[in-house]
């Protein structure tokens, strides 16, 4: 090994005293400070000028939230580079290295940092915090429902908790894979030095970060009493908390849209030499299909919430029937977002599951192209099924048949994904490490979620189940049992690369069994409630539903215990875990071929890819190798099946 030819690490660059400019002074604390300051200013100004008007308090809350979000992003540095650029002096190369985190050690995790690995790690922590919040709220809900007429929560608090639990979990699940893994892992997977738009990448994180306090603020502004679906006109009449809720969504959509564009552009433009679209790891495909679907779905959410705010703040009446609007308009716009969003959540973790199954079965992904076609078909159909959420609203009964058709059609590509998953396991060398445990749990749960979905797709049966606990159990099986368990598998799989340490699998298996059993008990309890006819989102219920509810609550506590053990395992691993080798799973994708911890700009030498990463058992050399030195400065594709090498990286980078 002629290591002498390897270039020096970028992060060891010594920066001048003025590198980074204003960024040197900005961090999360200046962001919080400036956000609170500007929020306060907005509150004072709007309070003084608008409080007397008809929609005064709504206007005040909207302005305050807007002030907070803009202030936070000014304080963290989101707008620095664009403003400098507009003023005519762009960032210098040293500035860019500073913003990428050079020379800041761990502080870079608390700053506006363009390194995609920092952003990915930030996302991972944020998602864990969101799950902790949402999970705590879920435990409060289940505790309230342990008896038929519990006095643990009053109905107003209960409704507010139900709403925030739903929305926080939706936000968390949308970004749980596309945040941490599509940012940290996916660029390395395709042989890129960073995302296509590193500044937008950092922005997408800090914008979503600033959205979170808005939704938590709803508890102090009267609480949103309308559920996460916030059906009008109830939500139009809701306390000012609804304005904060809507602002949270609007800001969140900005973040998701920016991140989605970034993901797609990265994959389209930043692939390494030889990394054709047909050689992309399947997880990359899942990421871009999920991101693309998000770009379709999320604007409708922004639109819906903007209309909601104008209804509340300026007295328009898009959704108020009394003034010529229609609640059905809200329901349509909401679900045009709402159903594709389910697949925005689902597709990336399912793709990650296929990736993991391939590594741990030591087999190629079964039906790689078929699986991609399945994802594309799911995404295409997903935009045409929204009205199955409205079968019982009374809107357009003539469309019952067509929407039954599209909804049931979607089970065909979903079935294909199942075939690809079990086909990958078929006669594999099943290596039962911790990620694989969760892959199996994903399969077992998701099939239950899928089968119970077909009852709900059928209009006559949906007339019984709509709005009752059966629906709740069904979508928790798909989103928790399916998507979130898939994401859990992804956490276990990529944790060694992200943290540089191994997880303690003995602790992990305790967590696994608690989670696996907890999910079944919790949601079988809820299926039972649903069959008996218990409506959703009720704080009190008829004593005939008692046994089912108690079963569900016991299961929920088990589940919570499992997640706490899992959290302990992660924190323990992060601090005290064994140092991870670069490729603990002997996987063939590129992210495992770079050193751990991953250097800035990932590749010391550009990789040249000669085959896809699924050459298990084919007896050919690995086609996705990263050479650690550069024998030639004239990169050339070498024939498939042999390791390639590329040019020495341009240490300057291309931010």
């Amino acid at each position, binding site marked *: 090994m002629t290591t002498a030819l390897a270039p020096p690490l970028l992060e060891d660059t010594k920066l001048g005293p003025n590198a980074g400019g204003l960024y040197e002074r900005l961090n999360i604390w200046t962001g919080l400070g400036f956000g609170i300051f500007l929020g306060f200013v907005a509150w004072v100004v709007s309070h003084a000028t608008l409080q007397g008007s008809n929609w005064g308090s709504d206007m005040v809350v909207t302005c305050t939230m807007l002030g907070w979000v803009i202030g936070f992003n000014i304080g963290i540095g989101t707008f620095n580079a664009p403003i400098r650029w507009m003023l005519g002096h762009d960032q210098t190369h040293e500035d860019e290295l500073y913003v990428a985190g050079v020379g800041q050690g761990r502080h870079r995790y608390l700053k506006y940092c363009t390194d995609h690995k920092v952003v990915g790690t930030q996302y991972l922590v944020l998602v864990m915090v969101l799950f902790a919040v949402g999970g705590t709220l879920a435990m409060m809900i289940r505790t309230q429902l342990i008896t038929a007429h519990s006095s643990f929560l009053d109905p107003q608090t209960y409704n507010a908790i139900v709403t925030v639990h739903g929305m926080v979990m939706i936000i968390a699940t949308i970004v749980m894979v596309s945040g941490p893994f599509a940012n940290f892992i996916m660029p390395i997977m395709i042989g890129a030095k960073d995302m296509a738009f590193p500044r937008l990448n950092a922005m997408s994180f800090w914008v979503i970060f600033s959205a979170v306090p808005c939704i938590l603020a709803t508890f102090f502004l009267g609480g949103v009493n309308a559920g996460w679906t916030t059906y009008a006109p109830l939500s139009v009449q809701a306390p000012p908390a609804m304005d904060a809720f809507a602002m949270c969504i609007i800001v969140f959509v900005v973040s998701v849209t920016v991140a989605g564009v970034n993901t797609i552009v990265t994959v389209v433009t930043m692939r390494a030499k030889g990394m054709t679209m047909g050689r992309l790891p399947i997880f990359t495909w899942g990421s871009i299909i999920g991101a693309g679907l998000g770009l379709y779905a999320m604007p409708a959410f922004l639109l819906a919430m903007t209309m909601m705010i104008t209804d509340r703040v300026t007295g328009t009446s898009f959704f108020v029937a009394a003034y010529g609007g229609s609640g059905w308009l809200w329901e349509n716009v909401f679900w045009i977002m709402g159903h594709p969003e389910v697949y925005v959540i689902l597709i990336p973790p399912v793709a990650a599951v296929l990736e993991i199954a391939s590594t741990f079965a030591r087999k190629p992904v079964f039906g790689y192209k078929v699986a991609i076609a399945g994802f594309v078909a799911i995404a295409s159909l997903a935009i045409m099924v929204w009205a199955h959420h409205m079968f019982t609203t009374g809107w357009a009964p003539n469309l019952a048949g067509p929407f039954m058709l599209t909804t049931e059609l979607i089970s065909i590509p979903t079935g294909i994904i199942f075939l690809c998953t079990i086909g990958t396991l078929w006669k594999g060398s099943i290596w039962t490490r911790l990620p694989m445990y969760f892959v199996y749990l994903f399969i077992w749960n998701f099939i239950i979620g899928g089968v119970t979905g077909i009852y709900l797709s059928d209009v*006559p049966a949906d007339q019984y189940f709509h709005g009752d606990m059966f629906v709740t159990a069904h979508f928790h099986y798909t989103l928790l049992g399916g998507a979130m368990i898939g994401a859990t598998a992804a956490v276990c799989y990529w944790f060694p690369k992200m943290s540089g340490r191994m997880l303690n699998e003995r602790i992990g298996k305790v967590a696994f069994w608690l989670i696996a059993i907890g999910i079944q008990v919790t949601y079988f309890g809820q299926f039972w409630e649903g069959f008996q006819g218990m409506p959703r989102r009720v704080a009190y219920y008829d004593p005939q539903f008692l046994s089912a509810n108690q079963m569900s609550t016991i299961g929920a506590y088990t589940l919570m215990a499992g997640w706490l053990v899992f959290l302990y395992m992660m924190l323990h691993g992060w601090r005290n875990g064994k140092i991870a080798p670069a490729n603990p799973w002997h996987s063939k994708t590129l992210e495992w071929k770079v050193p751990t911890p991953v250097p800035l700009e990932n590749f010391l030498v550009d990789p040249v890819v000669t085959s896809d990463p699924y050459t298990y058992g084919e007896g050919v050399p690995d086609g996705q190798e990263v050479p650690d030195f550069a024998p030639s400065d004239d990169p050339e594709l070498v024939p498939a099946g042999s390791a390639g090498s590329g040019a020495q990286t341009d240490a300057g980078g291309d931010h």
Partner: protein
Amino acid sequence: MSFEEQVDDIEANTILGGEPFFSRAGGKIFIIWLVFTAIGVLIGVYAPHHLLPTLLSPQGSDVWKTIVVFTVLAAPVAAFVYAVSFYSLFAWRHKGNQDEPPPDAMPQRGNGPMTVVWLAISSLLVVVLLFWGITVWNTQQVTHADTLQVNVTGQQWVWTYSYPGTGVETRTLELPLNRPVEFNITSVDVTHGFWPAVLGVQVDANPNVTTIIRTTPNKLGNFTVRCSQLCGLYHAFMNNKAAVVTPQQFSTWLQSQGATQAVADQSAGVSSSASSPTTTLPGVTTATPTTVPGETATTLTPDATAPTTTAPATTAPAATVPDGTTTTTGPADSTTTTAPA
């Protein structure tokens, strides 16, 4: 069979890159699949009956039948996934040192015939599900000329029922047995969900809009109407008692709510003499009406004669017409939304 032998076996079978559909593993999986399918079918056939409450209308029975049929159809597919995944854990799991990866398995990148078969089966199942769903849905669309009209108004957090023509307005719902009923549902404030679960129908109560559902109760019994759409603070308490009763009891109940006897009898579809307690047949309150073939077109009319209307065996045929549940906008005939208030 050792792992190496297994690999040899696999490689011998994969000369063309495909995998024979039946192999030794396939045989065992087939047996596991059969067992799982049988379990699934048994659950599908027996469990819904025990889990669901007593359903009081044809639409309710449709719910039960749909669950049974769908579960039975889905059982083989789900069982296949479970069978393969369980078998893979027991038969193909790498035993021994878990710190090192097992040797690579066979390089199977797909299986065209298997994919096509899988695609064909799932497409076929979707066609069956769709055919079932649309057929049942269409049979529920049949409307009747003579129906009992019930106006339902949702408001935070009560349901109010009024029976047009009788002057009766109540907070409890009673319905006569075997009489087609049409609920005209609206709301005075926010969106509610009118959900008489055991009747197998449900529709939202939207402000300024009237939505309609139709059903024909065909079993006697008590039930609860609940609100299925989160509607604010006391959503959990937005429910009321309801019952399906005999026409005589219904008439008596209407009178107790303030209707005159003549109007009550007319609404209940019984003649005045029939409504007196002496002519009510014993056992009517518990009997499940039997259907009489060939009398499907009979509907109850207000001026039906006393003997016909009091005998359960002859009142029953009204229910043999598969009755419709539909949600249409606007009061039965015309406008979809009333003018803004």
